[in-house]
């Protein structure tokens, strides 16, 4: 991990965290059952979401307390990963998870606020961070000074101009409780982000906007959690850039843009589950 600050305090997770392999298995079952897409973007997100929910007071989220921590998943197409992680944190029931993407379910293929525990519906990109910034400003105005406001963004998503409008405002107001987390999986919709709009060096772009930058291995829950704990004790705007692999854990999908769209059939589902069975992630 590289960070703009030194001497990180010890991680302060409040509970035993779910095993990423178990969450990935849940995602595969959800996607296979409904023949849904977005496998790649869900798999890159898993450790990020585990670390984020691990840093939150989940009971306060469940009770919808006014001063609760907030989790905005701005890359709304990461719905399967979001719901699977929430399930493993006890925020969504197994019965509900089994309905994902199916007739009559409230669990659509993009994150929806009708699901208890979800803060905001997303799907059109570039919306989550402005909402998170507004929430952080509102919480500060209401003197809920301890609540963290997470916003998970894709590295393709941050091509949207509204993201940078929101970053400018967050920086100007030095929002220290807002934590944007970029799932930097290097692939946007149909190809590698470097071929479309190369954002490298991404950290410098955020530094130029006034953010302290924490660049971490996005598949290392402890490293992400450590960055969150540093930010929790910092006094200024910070961002986490989590370097990830799209499709992580499913060998035939890793780094393959087509798995943004493709759904699992019997053969690919079996192969994916077998790849995860070793628990070597």
């Amino acid at each position: 991990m590289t960070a703009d600050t030194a001497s990180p305090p010890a991680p302060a997770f409040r509970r035993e965290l779910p095993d990423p392999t178990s969450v990935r298995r849940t995602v595969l079952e959800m996607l296979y059952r409904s023949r849904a897409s977005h496998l790649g973007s869900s798999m890159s997100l898993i450790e990020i979401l585990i670390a984020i929910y691990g840093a939150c007071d989940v009971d306060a989220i469940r009770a919808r307390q006014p001063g609760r921590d907030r989790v905005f998943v701005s890359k709304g197409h990461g719905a399967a990963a979001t719901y699977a992680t929430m399930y493993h944190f006890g925020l969504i029931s197994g019965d509900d998870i089994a309905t994902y993407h199916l007739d009559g379910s409230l669990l659509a293929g993009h994150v929806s606020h009708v699901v208890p525990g979800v803060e905001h519906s997303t799907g059109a990109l570039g919306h989550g961070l402005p909402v998170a910034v507004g929430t952080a400003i509102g919480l500060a105005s209401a003197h809920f000074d301890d609540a963290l406001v997470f916003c998970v963004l894709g590295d393709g998503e941050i091509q949207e101009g509204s993201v940078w409008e929101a970053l400018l405002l967050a920086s100007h107001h030095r929002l220290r409780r807002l934590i944007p987390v970029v799932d930097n999986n290097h692939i946007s919709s149909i190809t590698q982000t470097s071929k479309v709009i190369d954002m490298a060096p991404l950290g410098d772009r955020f530094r130029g906007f006034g953010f302290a930058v924490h660049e971490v291995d996005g598949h290392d829950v402890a490293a992400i959690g450590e960055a969150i704990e540093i930010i929790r004790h910092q006094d200024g705007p910070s961002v986490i850039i989590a370097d990830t692999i799209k499709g992580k854990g499913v060998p035939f999908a890793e780094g393959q843009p087509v798995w943004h769209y493709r759904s699992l059939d019997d053969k690919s589902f079996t192969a994916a589950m077998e790849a995860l069975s070793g628990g070597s992630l």
Partner: protein
Amino acid sequence: MRGRIFEALQARMADDPSIFFVTGDMGINLVEPIEECYPERYLNVGIAEQNMIGVAAGLCNAGFRPVVYTIGNFLVHRCFEQIRDDIALHGYPVLLIGTSAGYDNAPLGPTHHVIDDWGAIRNLPGIDVYAPASVEFAASVLDRVLSANRPAYIRVAKGSATIPGSDDLVVDRPGSGSGPLLVSYGALAGECLKAQELMPELSVLILNKIHPVDMAALAPRFGAHDRAIVVEDHFGHSGLYSSLCQAVMESGVDCRIESAAPPLGFDLVVGASAATYLLRGGLDAAGILRRATAESSVREEARHGYR
């Protein structure tokens, strides 16, 4: 008009700590007292309207009731997806105040003509639209909207038209005879009243709330006339003409609805003031009178903008 709304806003903010004012760097000589009195509930997001709407939604998430202010074109056209996804979809009680309605910004050109704003808004579920025709209604609109606790858009024109007794949602000014019914809102309500002064048998119906239309309440007024002319500074095909055509037809009332509205297009020839554009479109009092008294073939031409 804006001054009355800001007076009401400042008074309301004193009583209601949930109201949070957000501006897109607009409102010079209007917003300063709010910033001074309520700095923790005042936010200038800068020239970044998309972000402004998202921020307003976030303020709702944190328990506030945002009042968002900027020029109507920046507010609606630039932010349509944010209004759809972040406000309407969530049912957040954000109050959008868009200024410079119609041709208020006349010589600034088509980018600043607000003649196609609320037609877009009315396509979104759950957002009420108000268009004050007078300072009397402007003074009360904020309380009405905030009491409703729903998303709302207030379309505000410049000026300070005074229409005594016009602080209700619907203002009825029956004529002395069986002339056509003029239906209008916002700045053009005044032109309709001028036309009525010149031809007293005209009736005038002013709608301070233009969406959704309460046809159950309005049906008797339309039923009393065989012709109604909808006078507006907004494209008729997506404006009040359109919604009244539908509402009147569905209500079964036998009344022919005609449109007096800007022709569908961008007017690239400068008009030094709103009056120029009203004159061009036949939307001034004299033009309204011509339409009211025209034979049917002439009315057809006027309705389609073939002038």
